């Protein structure tokens, strides 16, 4: 079992990266914790716990990227691909919590300013943490996709050519996606990781911002003796983190709520029209389109047709129309209209 997971993790670059970074973060957090306990510095201890929390988020992302590739089973007829969306959601939520937590800590610090000497130690550790996080940012840069349609992952497509669909046990459209004519050949394995990657990237970004905040406030205190800088910086960072999480949360919540895919918003009405114009079709009813996971769309639709209509033609044409729009799994129900 463990060997199986091990193989799954390392077979794909994305999960491998997450795993390695997780190890890095974890060891750094442990070192920080030990150092903090040894020097009895509260700031270091709490910062190390913050890093541990980050590690759990990374772990969630890793688990999701592994789980999402499990084979479909009887209970999971669509497979486990939704795990990726859930991971994005969980990461987004945890980031909000962290923002909230930092904010509350900053407020507490206004009441009781901490010892400045211990702050120096925190400064050194923050610089180190900043460097570690920079590595993370470079490693996961392709995950920084504010997912607008197809406009992402430009420079790093070379990384994913190695992935093929062999690890996919489930049958969701992975054969050469073409976004209605784009030249991108997004590998679906990589595309399906984007939510997770986004979450992980945001997490690392938040961590980096935190370190930057400590560096800035420490230098402000050192040069200007302005003690208030510390909590104010923290509050600012907390708001930044919260704001940066909002796009990820909106997207994952939309998917989880079975919302019509944003990418299809503008093409769907045209599709309905075209289907309605097919010979024999009286009306298009109850369209439901939703996202299973990134770039996998599923739809159900009911057509009212004349009794003597060529159903086969209608069915195949409807499928074509929607396949062009990007919906690969479509269920078309046909009802004959009473004459």
């Amino acid at each position: 079992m463990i060997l199986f997971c091990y193989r799954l993790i390392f077979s794909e670059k994305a999960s491998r990266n997450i795993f390695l970074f997780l190890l890095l973060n974890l060891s750094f957090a442990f070192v920080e914790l030990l150092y903090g306990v040894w020097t009895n510095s509260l700031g270091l201890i709490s910062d190390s716990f913050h890093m541990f929390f980050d590690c759990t988020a990374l772990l969630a992302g890793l688990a999701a990227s592994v789980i999402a590739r499990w084979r479909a089973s009887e209970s999971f007829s669509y497979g486990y691909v939704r795990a990726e969306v859930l991971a994005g959601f969980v990461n987004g939520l945890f980031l909000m919590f962290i923002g909230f937590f930092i904010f509350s800590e900053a407020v507490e610090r206004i009441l009781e300013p901490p010892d400045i000497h211990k702050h120096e130690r925190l400064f050194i550790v923050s610089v180190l943490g900043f460097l570690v996080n920079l590595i993370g940012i470079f490693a996961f840069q392709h995950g920084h996709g504010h997912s607008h349609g197809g406009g992402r992952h430009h420079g790093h497509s070379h990384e994913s050519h190695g992935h093929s669909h062999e690890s996919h046990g489930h049958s969701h459209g992975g054969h050469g996606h073409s976004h209605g004519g784009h030249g991108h050949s997004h590998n679906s394995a990589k595309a399906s990781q984007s939510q997770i990657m986004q979450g992980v990237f945001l997490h690392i970004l938040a961590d980096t911002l935190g370190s930057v905040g400590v560096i800035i406030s420490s230098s402000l205190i050192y040069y200007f003796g302005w003690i208030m800088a510390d909590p104010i910086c923290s509050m600012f960072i907390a708001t930044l983190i919260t704001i940066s999480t909002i796009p990820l949360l909106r997207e994952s919540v939309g998917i989880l709520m079975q919302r019509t895919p944003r990418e299809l918003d503008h093409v769907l009405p045209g599709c309905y029209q075209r289907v309605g114009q097919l010979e024999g079709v009286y009306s298009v009813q109850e369209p439901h389109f939703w996202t299973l996971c990134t770039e996998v769309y599923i739809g159900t639709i009911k057509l009212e047709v004349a009794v003597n209509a060529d159903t086969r033609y209608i069915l195949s044409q409807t499928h074509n129309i929607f396949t062009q729009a990007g919906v690969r799994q479509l269920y078309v129900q046909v009802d004959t209209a009473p004459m």
Partner: protein
Amino acid sequence: MGRYSGKTCRLLTMLSLTASFFVVEIVVGYLTNSIALVADSFHMLSDVAALIVGFASVRISKWQTEKNTYGWVRAEVVGAMANALFLVALCFSILVEALKRLVTFEEVENPKLLLIVGGMGLLVNFIGLALFHNHGHSHGGHSHGGHSHGGHSHGGGGATDHNHSQGHGHSHSHGHNHRHGDGDHHGNEEEKKALVKHTSANGVIKPVASEISQDEEAGDDESVKIIINDTSKEELNNIDIDIDNPRVAASAQLNMRGVFLHVLGDALGSVIVVISALVIWFAEGDWRFYVDPAMRVTYISYNLSFIACITFSSSMVMVMIIFSTTLPLLKESGFILLQTVPSHIHVSEIKEKVEKIDGVLAVHELHIWQLAGNRIIGSAHIRCKNLQCYMKTAREIRDLFHHEGIHSTTIQPEFTAVRIHTL
């Protein structure tokens, strides 16, 4: 839409109570310079946030928009999951705080004040528990429909609050046609007696649909006519009939459970605050009677570590409790969000039954998933010989699905000559 049901009413009262208490706590904490109070006030704030999430999901699930073709019903499941995750994060932060307090001793300046404020917080939490305790456990034999416009709907007889009735005239309207297929679980008797309650603005509960009868004239189509008492047209669209379905945990309950667990966690937190305040107060009180400095010092240190032990262990116990109660909620909402087949449905059995139907050559791509609460959605490809054959079998298949509780089905025909690749 100014109608407040029992659920939203409770949420609102609890919300306002907690919010005001948060303000009180943070002001007092700031004035007396007590970190413990400020920390506890942020706990209250997180409670407020959880309540807001719960409230928002209840309201959002009733929206209708174009983009969400299924409606926003999933909001309650998402809200439940958010609350569960919130609780997990809360556990974590409590753990961190407890460990921090173990390492460094925090000077508690005014234990009496802490005790008073903690006690008040506990009171507020008890009120919350009383308000929400109905939803604390997943009801085995009871479920609420996915949309219930406002109040709780209790299916079948036996609910005691159907006594209110108002003398409105009957107006027959086919506002809602529901197919009831599960004859073997509940006799038709119970279906007829199902009442849909509706709480109006002034808190009076009035039965909205007093009778559900089967329409004989409809023939094959087992549609059910609902006689609605004097309700306006728009309400009809939002009323769902609640049928006693012991098998499905409703989403509304899921959401409320999340809120309840959060309030429980906060109550436990207040308990800890009160306990530690008591211990400190008692310890300090006793200490004053000791004259000998050496004894005083040792007594203090003994008390300090004693206090630390108590607060730490109680925090651990609290974390355990919260975590173990949150885990099932997390799992349940997580499974729904993962598009899992609901646990009471056996896909292979259904597939076999469908294949046995006359005229069905093959079944592909059978997907059954739970939208929220009672709304289960299914889709499949059926291979048949021709269109007429398909129309006949489609009816039977739909009935089969209704029997199982799957009410929204989309069945695509596949005719033998043409094979449509959907992958």
